[in-house]
């Protein structure tokens, strides 16, 4: 059996499971309802009915993505490996001619595909509706969607690492929520706190370095860079860091690869030592 066949078999099974248990379609429906209502009803409190304009809509979607997508991805993968181990199925899988790395990668790809389907089926209809009503730039929207997919994949990789570190699925979910709070709320508040505490004293390099430590912030900065219309309504046009997009992209890719490699290393180690549970 070719290694790629084994990876494909695991990925296909994980994807089929997510589709069968309706996780994908539930998340997709919820996201679609949220994106559409945010887009077309989000400005009603200030007396505007309908989509307020491409920039504002893009900014709203960006904000929605940065809060919701990491949470969905983290909770989705929180119990993945540990649950299979507790059920005894992992033993059956690993006595097949498949390595732990192939299983790990296959499971990740299956979950990533499921998450991507949920995101694409919710964001694309919103994008089409926006293209007809606000004249939003389809290229800009496609870039935002690509970034949203990357953000989801990064936090999914983190959830796989958390799953390996957790002793049971419940703890995995709790740890995932904690990571989400840290990444989406606490980290930003801490950075802003530093800026306020040391006004003008913090070298730009330190500020930019801190941003690279949080994938949610990398996503934000890249989104502002790639979708210029989103930055304007938030008043952030002059505040975006000067880190080259290539560096930011590389950082985002590393945020996906490093947790996966680390997760697999720990997975191998705990399997060998019989300490996975």
């Amino acid at each position, binding site marked *: *059996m070719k290694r790629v*066949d084994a990876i494909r078999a695991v990925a296909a099974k994980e994807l089929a499971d997510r589709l069968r248990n309706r996780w994908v379609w539930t998340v997709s429906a919820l996201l679609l309802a949220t994106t559409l209502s945010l887009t077309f009803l989000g400005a009603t409190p200030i007396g505007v009915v309908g989509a307020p304009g491409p920039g504002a809509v893009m900014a709203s979607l960006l904000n929605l993505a940065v809060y919701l997508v990491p949470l969905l991805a983290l909770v989705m993968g929180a119990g993945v490996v540990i649950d299979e181990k507790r*059920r*005894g199925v992992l033993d*059956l899988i690993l006595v*097949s*001619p498949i*390595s732990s790395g192939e299983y790990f990668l296959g499971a990740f790809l299956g979950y990533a595909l499921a998450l991507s389907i949920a995101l694409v089926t919710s964001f694309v209809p919103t994008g089409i509706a926006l293209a007809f009503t606000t004249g939003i730039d389809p290229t800009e929207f496609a870039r935002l969607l690509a970034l949203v997919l990357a953000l989801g994949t990064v936090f999914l990789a983190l959830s796989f690492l958390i799953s390996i570190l957790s002793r049971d699925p419940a703890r995995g979910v709790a740890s995932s929520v904690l990571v989400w709070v840290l990444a989406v709320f606490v980290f930003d508040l801490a950075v802003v706190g530093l800026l306020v505490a040391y006004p003008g004293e913090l070298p730009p390099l330190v500020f930019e370095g801190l941003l690279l430590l949080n994938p949610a912030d990398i996503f934000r900065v890249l989104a502002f860079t790639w979708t210029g219309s989103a930055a304007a309504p938030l008043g952030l046009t002059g505040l975006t860091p000067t880190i080259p997009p290539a560096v930011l992209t590389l950082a985002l890719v590393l945020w996906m690869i490093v947790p996966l490699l680390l997760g697999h290393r720990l997975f191998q180690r705990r*399997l060998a030592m019989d300490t996975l549970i």
Partner: protein
Amino acid sequence: MTIRLDGVSKRFGTVTAVAPIDLEIGDGEWFGLFGRNGSGKTSLLRMLVGLSRPSSGRVLLDGTEPTAEVWRQVRRGLGFMPERVVMFEDQTGEQTLRYFARLKGVSVTEVGPLLEQVGLSTAAIRQVGTYSKGMLQRLNLAQALLGDPRLLVLDEPLSGLDVQGVKELFELLGTVEGRTVVLSSHRLPVMSRFVDRICVLRAGRIAALGTEEELQRRVGLPARVVVHPVHSAAGANESHGSLSAEIERLNAGTLVSLNGRLVVSVAQSEKLRLLAGLDGLGAAIDSVRVEEPSLEEVLLETS
């Protein structure tokens, strides 16, 4: 495939699950592992299939210590049935087997006949979550049998099976000529009828190893000779009493009277002398039956 364990042990922190063990299982041998809960059976089986790394010693397959790549090759011809597994409840039996077939690199066309073999063909399209315990056991066995493995390692495969189920199980296991089978069970009398050798584990150590007969001989448990007296015209009590006295005179073991029968508990070394003596009392005896100690009794004695 031959399996050799050279000083293999397994420790979990300060707890020793398996003390250093030397053991060889021959090609095509059916090998049974017995022992109470916590005796180290599952830990040993997990090391045999490469799921767990020994704390010391080495597992040799066909004389060589397998590398990761060799394990991959070995696993193409390996079937493993764990004791406890919760299959994917929302998949059908057929989908479950198809998944494992793909992982093993086995053609999915094998799935249908295999489901038929284990008696799950009509339940194949039902979700596994609706299966009974016996059906789950058969599905678990079916995944182990995918690809006609040369080496089968089964942890408590008799659990949940009735007498007929056990018979069918062993018929299924025997469909491949020269297949090596290693299995663990608590059901000694059933298991001992099918395996070539038995290893009794106690607290992670080998307490006894050999064929059923060898174990019985080694432990030297007494045999029971049951004598049914002839009922004479003089009366049952009289004939019973005189026969009892004659047997006592043979001085070959401990005699008790039980529901009209005379039961002599006799050492294996004295058994033939007692039978010869009973032959001399032929006219007073209706029948004689020799009951050897069961393997279960051997296990109780050794562990």
